[in-house]
């Protein structure tokens, strides 16, 4: 029972860490837009904590490059389990339009395991909300 309560709470209280991993800002500001009154993801108990130690969900926007991949891994490691990674935008999924550029490693899943892919360029706030909601379902599996 206690377990169920915890899972329930996890789903009801996902705290976000948003890391901009070399995004063009398009996806980035759409993530921020989700916090604003119009979308207000705090309705789902979502808080943008900006601190890996507190976060449950890692939202990654943008392409991974050689420098920021180390940061990404660091942040991922600092997050306590269970955690979900949501990659956002074409860049985060595959490197998008930049995937052939010399300093681009590729999508986020080249570096850390990704649970949800949110396509779009930029992904719309609604899509990001959908993505997070799908990510939350993952908590059921990640007990």
């Amino acid at each position, binding site marked *: 029972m206690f377990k169920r309560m915890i899972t329930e709470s996890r789903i009801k209280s996902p705290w976000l860490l948003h890391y901009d991993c070399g995004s063009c800002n398009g996806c980035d500001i759409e993530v921020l837009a989700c916090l604003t*009154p119009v979308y207000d993801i705090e309705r789902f108990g979502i808080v943008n904590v900006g601190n890996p130690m507190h976060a449950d969900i890692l939202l990654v926007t943008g392409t991974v490059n050689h420098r920021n991949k180390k940061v990404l891994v660091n942040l991922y490691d600092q997050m306590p389990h269970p955690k979900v990674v949501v990659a956002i935008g074409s860049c985060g999924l595959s490197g998008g*339009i930049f995937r052939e550029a010399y300093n681009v490693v590729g999508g986020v899943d080249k570096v850390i395991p990704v649970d949800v892919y949110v396509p779009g360029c930029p992904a719309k706030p609604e899509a990001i909300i959908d993505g997070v909601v799908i990510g939350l379902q993952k908590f059921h599996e990640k007990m």
Partner: protein
Amino acid sequence: MTPNIIRNFVTKRATRRYPHEVRAPFEGARGELYNEIEKCTFCRICAVKCPSQCITVDKKTATWECNPFACVYCGICVDVCREKCLHQKCQYRPPVCEREIIFMKGKTKKTG
């Protein structure tokens, strides 16, 4: 600021309660790609012009493939398709948990 927040407090909230309340997408919003494959002639123009180079067209096998994870939804391919068989829905492409690819197979046409 006080008048502002008081106004906010008493007036209606600005929040759109997505996903319980979904606003109809704007007409012409550049969403998911789809190809009326029957009409497609596999001329490869879309593939060539695509700035993200995410379309693969194979005339021989009559396949049209697009990597939705690399596509930047710019709509260039839609613009350039002579057959007008490529379209963008107004709906964005939904998030998923696995990598995927848009794969369409048409009939091989005799080139005339």
